[in-house]
């Protein structure tokens, strides 16, 4: 063995060391080139003293939705736009998949960086409460978005920006009742999901309040054929209005209505926007879609935290409802445009 080692010699080991160093060096250079722009660039507005502190404002956004997801990419667009408009620095982080453990660690990391404010979503209060409380205890103002509207206050979060499910469903019910609907179905594709249950409850309460009746129909999210047939079967009872809670439900309901030819006669409303839904509204197949307006969930918290950092002002707490925003035939065309730009 030593004979061989002598042959390997200093040249051999240096050779390998060099190769390693080169590889590492190239790696370092490659990654360095992908760094975000440093915050201290020229600000867009005239360089008065009031702008200088703005550039120092750093806000961290940690959500459970990846920027590659169509819903969350709109949120991120809101975040980025606000950062640009205000001239502050914002980072957006999310775990690679729905992973509460990773998300809480991301929050911890951001807290260690001592930002001027943190924006979080709270899909799992149990898992995230420790990290959020730690952020609050560290004196960092926290605003929550999208999920956690029922628990944010207990964690010390200052504000919640999002859509409250019950009110959204209620708003949908009011709208339907206003157009004369008396007997409604609420097609829930995930019975047991507390948020969705609340939507249906609000919806039916509103219709009942206006003198009508309604009931919940559970459909199978994973089986569109099953859902379609279930809706069809339930339509026989003189139903004249349906609310679905997402694209999965709305696709099934549309198919059912097409099948029995009642499209346009039975009023259909849904939650959340997709290109199909928007086209359906434009073509008169759907009455309305309830838009969470998640762009605002990205935009507004940045504005609020910046003002808080600069001047100490903040709305006195509570929930800023970004929804329900209704998209109807009149506004469908414009929304389709904006959807292409990633704003709705």
């Amino acid at each position: 063995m030593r004979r061989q080692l002598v042959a390997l010699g200093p040249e051999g080991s240096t050779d390998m060391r060099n190769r390693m160093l080169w590889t590492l060096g190239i790696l370092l250079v490659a990654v360095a080139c992908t760094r975000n722009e440093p915050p201290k660039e020229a600000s867009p507005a005239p360089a008065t003293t009031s702008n200088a502190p703005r550039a120092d404002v750093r806000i961290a956004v940690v959500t459970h939705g990846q920027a590659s997801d169509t819903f969350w990419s709109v949120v991120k667009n809101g975040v980025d736009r606000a950062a640009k408009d205000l001239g502050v620095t914002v980072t957006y982080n999310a775990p690679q998949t729905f992973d509460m453990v990773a998300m809480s660690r991301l929050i911890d990391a951001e807290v260690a960086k001592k930002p001027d404010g943190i924006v979080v979503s709270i899909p799992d209060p149990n898992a995230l409460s420790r990290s959020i409380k730690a952020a609050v205890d560290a004196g960092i103002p926290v605003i929550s978005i999208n999920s956690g509207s029922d628990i944010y206050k207990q964690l010390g979060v200052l504000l919640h920006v999002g859509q409250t499910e019950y009110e959204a469903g209620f708003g949908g019910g009011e709208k339907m009742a206003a157009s004369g609907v008396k007997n409604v179905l609420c097609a829930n594709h995930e019975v047991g999901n507390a948020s969705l249950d609340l939507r249906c409850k609000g919806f039916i309460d509103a219709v009942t309040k206006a003198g009508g009746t309604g009931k919940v129909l559970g459909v199978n999210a994973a089986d569109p054929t099953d859902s379609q047939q279930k809706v069809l079967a339930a339509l026989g009872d003189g139903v004249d209005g349906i609310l679905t809670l997402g694209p999965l439900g709305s696709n099934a309901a549309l198919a059912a209505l097409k099948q029995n030819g009642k499209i346009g006669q039975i009023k259909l409303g849904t939650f959340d926007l997709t290109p199909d839904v928007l086209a359906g509204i434009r073509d008169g197949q759907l009455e309305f879609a309830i838009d969470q307006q998640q762009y605002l969930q990205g935009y507004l918290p940045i504005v609020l935290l910046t003002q808080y950092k600069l001047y100490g002002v903040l709305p006195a707490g509570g929930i800023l409802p970004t929804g329900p925003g209704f998209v109807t035939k009149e506004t469908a065309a414009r929304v389709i445009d904006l959807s292409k730009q990633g704003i709705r």
Partner: protein
Amino acid sequence: MRKLLNRPEFGAVGGTAAIWLFFAFYAGGSGFLTWPGTASYLEIASELGILAAAVSLLMIAGEFDLSVGSTIAATGMTISLLCERLGWSLWAAIAAAGVLALGVGFLNGLVVVRTRLPSFIVTLGTLFILSGSTIGVTRLVTGRTQVGGLHEALHYGAAETLFASRIGGFSVSIFWWLALTALTAWVLLRTRFGNWIFGAGGAPDAARNLGVPVARVKIALFMTTALAAWFVATSQAIKFTGTDVLRGTGKELEAILAAVIGGTLLTGGYGSVIGAGFGALIFGMVQQGIVFSGIDSDWYKVFLGAMLITAVLVNSYVRGKVMEARR
């Protein structure tokens, strides 16, 4: 000195140093070098490291366990459901989950050994079965996908001290990780059983003919990986006072990656538990370091992939030198 180069961990140690230097340079000011920053990536490393130690043993014996991630979800959810729904004491629930883990590991091992199917396939099947069962049972029983409230369980305080407390700001998981890695490495390198692991992976037929109980070794190792998953699930359930059905998703691949970065061959017969520990450390540093340095998190995967390839290249280069036969 040459001996150092020949060790399977060499690539991983070098890589760790390089990554640390990189982030110290780029993100030192923004928290990477602070104590809390260090504690955060060490904690991530510790949980992955416990998995990687067990997984590397199994890989050295020539098998894969893709069900580790879903075992985390299943055992964690078992603990949460037993406590929240049935009011069990935490220790009892943890023990029950441990029995589940042993059962899963035993079945994995038995099927692999009896059917001679590739363990990749068998454990992939287990992954689906476990993952689906976890989701199905949880929704059936609770109608939700997250089960919390563990802090109200009996004996939570004691369990919290054991699994979720912090010493000087550093999670106690880190100490568990170091202890378990040391134990595993000792078993591999200093016991008879460890030699059997090498033999079972490097030349299974020959080993069998020489009297090594290859089947028993493999079954034992599958049970070990399942137990590692159970340990991590317990830690996380206690830390986060609950479980969700998707917990642990993807951890099996990360553990394999950490083991490979640490010098373990995919073909078996060669590897290092200490190396897997460094592999897990690299993971932790990269995951948090990217956040600290402000690099867009989309590049996390690129970074990881590049590092993996580099590590494997270095490892095989070193191994090639080691294997050069005399004339």
